[in-house]
């Protein structure tokens, strides 16, 4: 039986291995999303409390563009390992960032106010 190689390295795109198209498409999307981000942060056109949400959406979209068009990570069957590793990385990253923020906000909320604390020390 013939031995077949299994899987594909991250960053390799078998269909477009000799084409610059993927990078140019990615560049187009990335520039558009970057411009949109800087526009959203400076304009008064968007309802102010919604701006952070809009920035988060644009940033996540741009990260997705970079992963798909520059790193060439996809959900193709030969990329299962790469994609699962990426999912785990995203999971841990979210856990660290949001976990820290929730815990610190909670601690801040529970802390005895400073003037009361001075009073208790006396």
């Amino acid at each position, binding site marked *: 039986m013939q031995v077949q190689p299994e899987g594909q*390295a991250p960053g390799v795109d*078998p269909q477009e291995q000799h084409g610059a198209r993927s*990078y140019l498409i990615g560049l187009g999307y990335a520039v558009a999303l970057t411009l949109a981000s800087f526009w959203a942060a400076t304009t008064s056109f968007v309802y102010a409390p919604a701006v952070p949400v809009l920035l988060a959406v644009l940033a996540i979209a741009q*990260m997705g563009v970079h992963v798909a068009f520059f790193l060439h990570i996809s959900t193709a069957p030969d990329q299962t390992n790469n994609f699962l590793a990426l999912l785990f990385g995203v999971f841990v990253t979210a856990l660290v960032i949001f976990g*820290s923020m929730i815990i610190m906000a909670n601690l801040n909320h529970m802390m005895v106010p400073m003037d009361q604390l001075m009073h208790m020390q006396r």
Partner: protein
Amino acid sequence: MSAAEQALTGVSDIPLALRGPAPVRVVAGFGFWLFLLSDIIIFATLFATYAVLSGATADGPSGVELFDKRHVFLETLCLLASSVTCGFGLLASYRADARATYFWMAMTFLLGLCFLRMEGTEFASMVAAGAGPSHSAFLSAFFTLVGTHGLHVSVGLIWLVIMLLQLATLGFRPLIARRFFCFALFWHALDIVWIGVFTIVYLGAK
């Protein structure tokens, strides 16, 4: 499906357990990908620190007063362009086209150097204005997060110079191709981290 087609698409009728070991290129790429993800987790801890401390300005200057969005936009464009030229350099190295590889990788180096220089001027002007890392918890977190990214870019530039020297002395052999490939992954990953930096630190400044 022909054997050549199977090799190209990676899709095969042979059950997983009966297939041979993955080629070195795939294993090296996957290992480096795991390293990059762990590096991104380091950045996640620094982002978390920044998010918690960003309000602790100790009556010093806040982000809005310090950051120049136009400057950051140019930095972003430098890094984005260098990511694309790095991709073109990688494609040129696949074709074993030495001139194109040197050209695109040199462009990558120059754009990366531009980015570092702009970041250096920003840091220097902040420290000169009395907003150094020791001033407040916010500034400590800022310099740690953005400085770690800058340090990664510096290491990437040193790596790129070494790669070009190795290409000049050793030529296009599989070992060099793998290293170029890992460098490209590293460079693209740094650009992804920078998206987080400019969104959270510079555009999200309160």
